[in-house]
């Protein structure tokens, strides 16, 4: 098997320009991920009735499950997912494992917020990006031979973002710590460690060449399976069913939140693929900034608060933007990328994955023996129609919440989201055809 033939002399130049293009693409994906992950909080804010947090999480994850199967079917078709799995079947284990890690971390955050409040809990679990940098360096050769300037940009940027996130969390928090502080600290730190470690499977999958669209379809089995097991063990099957049926009028909003989250997460996966976890994860952690924009301008959350709160918000936002900028300008140079390839070679040798496939996918291309054009079958359209039908069904019985929303900012933020989706989606399509 051979990769696409090119004239010998032009190869290094083309490879360098291609690598640069993929770096920019990864950074753009990170920005877009932040915007969409932040927006995912908006529909959940519409749910004001007293539903237990565990049930809210479970309903969101059901929405996530539907989106994680229907989006890949719509974009590339399940045949592409099957082809990916045939090349590297061992990665299914890591995808399911990552989904389990996510579900346990998400449950821990519920306890952390309850026990110590968002303002203390958020900065603690936001440390996941620092752990992501460590795992990226330790296991996958990220930031090796990167030079002190890039180290300072990435590590300094992530630390500045953590400081900004702390200020934003303090400003947006309305909860007072409710005792059990040590338990809450452990829960928040635990969530950070679980999320930070979840990036090991991410990076492993993308170094091996797996398409993010394939990875997330298996990730979601771990996510839904673990979340269901936790919800059943915490609430009991019968009470859980009662909670779900009594919440049917708001299920649509929570599932919509899950759907928007999946779009953000998909871009986060592309960021992890093209700029690595050490840069991609901090970039997509800018979601807190976007979540706050929705909170302040759409839901009027800080209305009537003191000027010091607004100063904290402005300061925190500036710090977040500074951190994002520092990371964005520290993209990996040729030496570092050569080390990434060495990490990919380990996967090739260990799991017997075809080297051409790994190299082509690292460059955002199809391997020479892959189908030129992905095809969708009747099964794919059935999946898309089924998922859409479930959303329409719950939309039909959804109750429109009685809340005063500021529609001007809603329109502006949605326009910004769609613009980012269009720009980043087009850039991904033109450069990689979503490979």
């Amino acid at each position, binding site marked *: 098997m051979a990769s696409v033939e090119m004239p010998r002399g032009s190869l290094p130049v083309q490879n360098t320009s291609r690598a640069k293009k993929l770096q920019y693409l990864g950074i753009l994906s990170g920005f877009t991920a932040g915007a969409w992950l932040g927006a995912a909080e908006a529909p959940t804010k519409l749910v004001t009735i007293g539903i237990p947090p565990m049930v809210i999480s479970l309903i969101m994850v059901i929405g996530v499950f539907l989106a994680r199967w229907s989006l890949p079917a719509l974009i590339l078709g399940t045949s592409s997912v099957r082809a990916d799995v045939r090349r590297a*079947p*061992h990665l299914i*284990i*890591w995808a399911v*494992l*990552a989904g*389990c*890690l996510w579900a*346990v*971390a998400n*449950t*821990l955050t519920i*306890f952390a917020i309850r*026990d110590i409040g968002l303002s203390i809990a958020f900065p603690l679990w936001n440390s996941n990006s620092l752990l992501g940098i460590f*795992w990226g360096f330790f*296991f996958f050769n990220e930031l090796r031979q990167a030079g002190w300037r890039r180290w300072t940009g990435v590590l300094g940027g992530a630390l500045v973002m953590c400081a900004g996130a702390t200020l934003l969390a303090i400003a947006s928090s309305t909860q007072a710590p409710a005792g059990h502080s040590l*338990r809450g600290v*452990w*829960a928040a730190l*635990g969530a950070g*460690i*679980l999320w930070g*470690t*979840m990036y*090991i*499977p991410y990076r*492993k999958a993308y170094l091996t060449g797996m398409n993010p669209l394939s990875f997330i379809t298996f990730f979601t089995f771990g996510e839904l399976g673990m979340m269901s097991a*936790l919800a059943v063990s*915490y609430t009991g099957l019968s009470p859980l069913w009662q909670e779900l049926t009594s919440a049917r009028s708001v299920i649509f909003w929570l599932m919509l939140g899950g759907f928007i989250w999946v779009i953000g997460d998909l871009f986060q996966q592309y960021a992890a693929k093209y700029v690595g976890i050490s840069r991609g994860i901090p970039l997509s952690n800018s979601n807190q900034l976007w979540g706050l924009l929705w909170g302040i301008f759409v839901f009027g959350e800080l209305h009537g608060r003191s000027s010091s709160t607004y100063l904290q918000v402005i300061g925190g936002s500036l710090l977040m933007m500074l951190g994002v900028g520092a990371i964005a300008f520290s993209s990996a140079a040729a030496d570092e990328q050569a080390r990434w390839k060495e990490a990919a070679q380990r996967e090739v040798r*260990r*799991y*017997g994955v075809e080297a051409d496939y790994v190299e082509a996918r690292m460059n955002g291309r199809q391997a020479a023996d892959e189908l030129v054009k992905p095809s969708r079958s009747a099964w794919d359209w059935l999946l898309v129609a089924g998922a859409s039908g479930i959303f329409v069904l719950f939309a039909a019985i959804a109750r429109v919440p009685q809340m005063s929303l500021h529609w001007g900012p809603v329109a502006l933020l949605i326009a910004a989201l769609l613009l980012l989706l269009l720009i980043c989606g087009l850039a991904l399509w033109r450069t990689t055809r979503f490979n």
Partner: protein
Amino acid sequence: MERNEITNVTSSRLTSVLTDIHFWVPVAVLLAGLLLLKFIR
């Protein structure tokens, strides 16, 4: 014959997974997370 080859490939892949540090680190962290959940409940 072919079935034997498939079984060999599957078992060698499983061995590769089970001897991979990239597998055990997330597994250990997941188990620790579940234990933590059990204690703080």
